């Protein structure tokens, strides 16, 4: 019969709503309260040194709102004001310099959209399907538009004549928090596209993302995107910090470990349908949607399989992929209600094709933790319920 939502006068069509100053800085409407970061408590000993996950299953487009973009802290998120902020450039430079926040705002700045992915994203899935949800398997990622000063501009201010030949030089970057997370970056990358960023998606960085200043290292693992950046040191060797030796290295089956695995290879995941996003509308038109990205550059193509990788169809890109940024893909399909084994496969501008989990295991064994960029499979049953599985 006729829909009472239409035939009867509804409150919202009769009463007035809230005024303009109700929320000077707005939050999502209450109906969206499940679109939040989530933590997997058993992963770490303490939430102060831990990670949570972006609700990628519930987002669309490519830009991640700061309020639900994953956090990873080694000693908790700190409150560091712009007034208290100092950035030191030292080491093999002509003039060791101190910059204030105000100084940074006087240097020419650029805008770029980049993804930031933790090297451990999907790491729990090496040994087998573990976590039921794209948020948990692939949510250590966010994608923002950054505003910042190229690191090369600051290095030039300090002068690199003292460094001599730049081919074998490094910058060591370090945060101001108690963990003083530090990583060595080869000079070639430092002079290329690394940004000293102070805005994301148009507004100041959030505390949990390094307010007031963080490093942006496009295409490279998130641990190098040092938050609360306080120091850049030009060195003649990698520092070998804890985060580049004991962590963020992967052991092969023969016990030898791989280090300096900076680039995040091409990867994709279907965000809907997925375990947290079942099909609730039954048969008929279905939008299969997902995200693809590559640390090597642009995503040029994404293929989708509904039968676990026997046949593939090329998906439609939401828009032309930006370099080292999330790209949205869609497969607009007609679901006949039969079970599906959904997979997606990203291809980047270098021709790199996202591998299967078996291909990765064959090369790396099962003791790896980081850089799991395998093809993900969701099993969708007749009811439209999806779960995380592995297939032959």
């Amino acid at each position, binding site marked *: 019969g006729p829909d009472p939502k239409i035939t009867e006068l509804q409150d919202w069509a009769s009463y007035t709503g809230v005024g303009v100053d109700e929320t000077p800085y707005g939050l999502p409407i209450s109906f969206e309260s*499940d679109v939040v*970061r*989530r933590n*997997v408590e*058993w992963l770490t*000993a*303490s939430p*102060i040194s831990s990670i949570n996950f972006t609700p990628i299953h519930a987002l669309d487009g490519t830009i991640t709102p700061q309020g639900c973009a994953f956090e990873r802290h080694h000693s908790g998120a700190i409150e560091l004001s712009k007034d208290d902020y100092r950035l*030191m450039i*030292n*080491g093999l430079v002509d*003039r*060791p*310099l*101190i*910059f204030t926040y105000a100084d940074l705002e*006087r*240097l*020419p*700045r650029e805008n770029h959209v980049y993804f930031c992915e933790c090297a451990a994203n999907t790491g729990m899935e090496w040994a087998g*399907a*573990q976590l*039921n*949800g794209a948020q948990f398997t692939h949510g250590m990622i966010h994608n923002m538009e950054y505003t910042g000063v190229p690191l090369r*501009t600051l290095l030039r*201010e300090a002068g690199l004549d003292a460094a001599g030949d730049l081919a074998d030089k490094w910058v*060591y970057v*370090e945060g101001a928090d*108690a*963990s*003083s997370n530090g990583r060595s970056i080869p000079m070639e990358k430092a002079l290329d596209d690394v940004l000293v960023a102070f805005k994301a998606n148009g507004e100041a960085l959030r505390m949990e993302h390094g307010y007031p200043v963080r490093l942006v290292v496009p295409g490279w693992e998130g641990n190098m995107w040092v938050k609360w950046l306080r120091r850049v*040191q030009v060195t003649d*060797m990698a*520092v*070998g*910090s*804890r985060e580049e*030796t*004991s962590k963020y290295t992967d*052991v092969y*089956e023969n016990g*030898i*470990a*791989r280090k*300096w*695995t900076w680039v995040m290879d091409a990867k994709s995941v279907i965000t809907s349908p997925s375990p947290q996003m079942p099909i609730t509308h039954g048969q008929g038109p279905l939008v299969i949607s997902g995200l693809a990205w590559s640390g090597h550059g642009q995503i040029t193509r994404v293929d989708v399989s509904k*039968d676990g*990788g*026997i*046949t*593939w169809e090329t998906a439609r890109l939401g828009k032309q992929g930006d370099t080292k940024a999330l790209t949205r893909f869609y497969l607009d399909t007609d679901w006949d209600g039969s079970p599906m084994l959904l997979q997606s496969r990203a291809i980047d501008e270098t021709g790199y*094709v996202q591998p299967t989990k078996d291909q990765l295991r064959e*090369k790396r064994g099962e*003791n790896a933790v980081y850089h799991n960029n395998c093809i993900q499979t969701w*099993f969708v049953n007749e009811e439209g319920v999806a*779960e*995380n599985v*592995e*297939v*032959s």
Partner: protein
Amino acid sequence: QAAAAEAARLLQEREELAALAAVSGASLTAPAPVIEGTYGLGRVAFDEEIAAWDVDVLPDGRGLPEGRGDVFTGEEVFVDKCASCHGDFAEGVGNWPVLAGGFDTLANRDPVKTVGSYWPYLSTAWDYINRSMPFGEAGTLTPDETYAIVAYLLYSNNMVDDDFELSHENFTEVEMYNADGFVVDDRPELEYAEWRTEPCMENCKESVEITMRATFLDVTPDEDVEAAVSAPATEATPAVAVAEDAGGIDPALIAAGEGAFRQCQTCHQVGEGARNRTGPVLNGVIGQAIGSVGGFRYSGVFEQANAAGEVWTAESLAAFLTDPRGTMSGTKMAFRGVGDEAEVAALIAYLQSFAD
């Protein structure tokens, strides 16, 4: 002069491009301008500033300060400052890192990666401990304490004898077990060539079977909406809101206690949704039977106090916080204590503001 001329030229170039873009309708984007010379921003760093911040230690030992520490001293410092998370013998507590052992496990399934078995450089241990440890009290160790802790870690990994002393002089002589255990990223050679090929689109395999399901393990957190949204709400609770239902306790004292509590929150949680961590939940601790928080494994001295019917009062808690090991000999709480009386009072006021 040259920079000014260059800047003027660039400005003109940009204006011409903008005019062109306006005509053609194309968007105008360009990288940040490149200039000869510098902008003259920033000021030269003082030597004292560089000395304060540039403390990293390189694999070849550069950056080490003078100092020394032996295994015996290291054990004392370690038990005092590190053992609550890493265990008395560096074996690790709960999910905290194990620091010793694991030799010859790197080729096993689930290798044990410790300072002894895995870390390629001793400098990494010294540097990390010096800058980032103890967790919640970073930057408080003296060089001698750091040398001593590192000496103890070498001893607990059977890499030196119990009379060993580590110093800036013999530091680079220590041989690390896994020094040659790393290769530089070999994905380009090992993987990329093979995977940069046109992929199969049809009849890519004969059949497909499900070989594993995540539901078998059931380790996914509950998607309880209330739980998910309550977490950030708890974090954001301002001190003022706490004070409102704090029943006559000085709000300023509570606020001071909230700051002082930062050193405790590595191990203890308090407030709505608090859970046992390395230490027990502290809600309603004043007036509570000692050693009575459900689900927490107490040390013997706490179990005895519980059996004797002892209760936390403001006075007994103040004594414990001032001198944990002196008051409760054998406590697992590896915390040196709060020296400042006002800080103790603030901490207690803060804890009193959280009812059970």
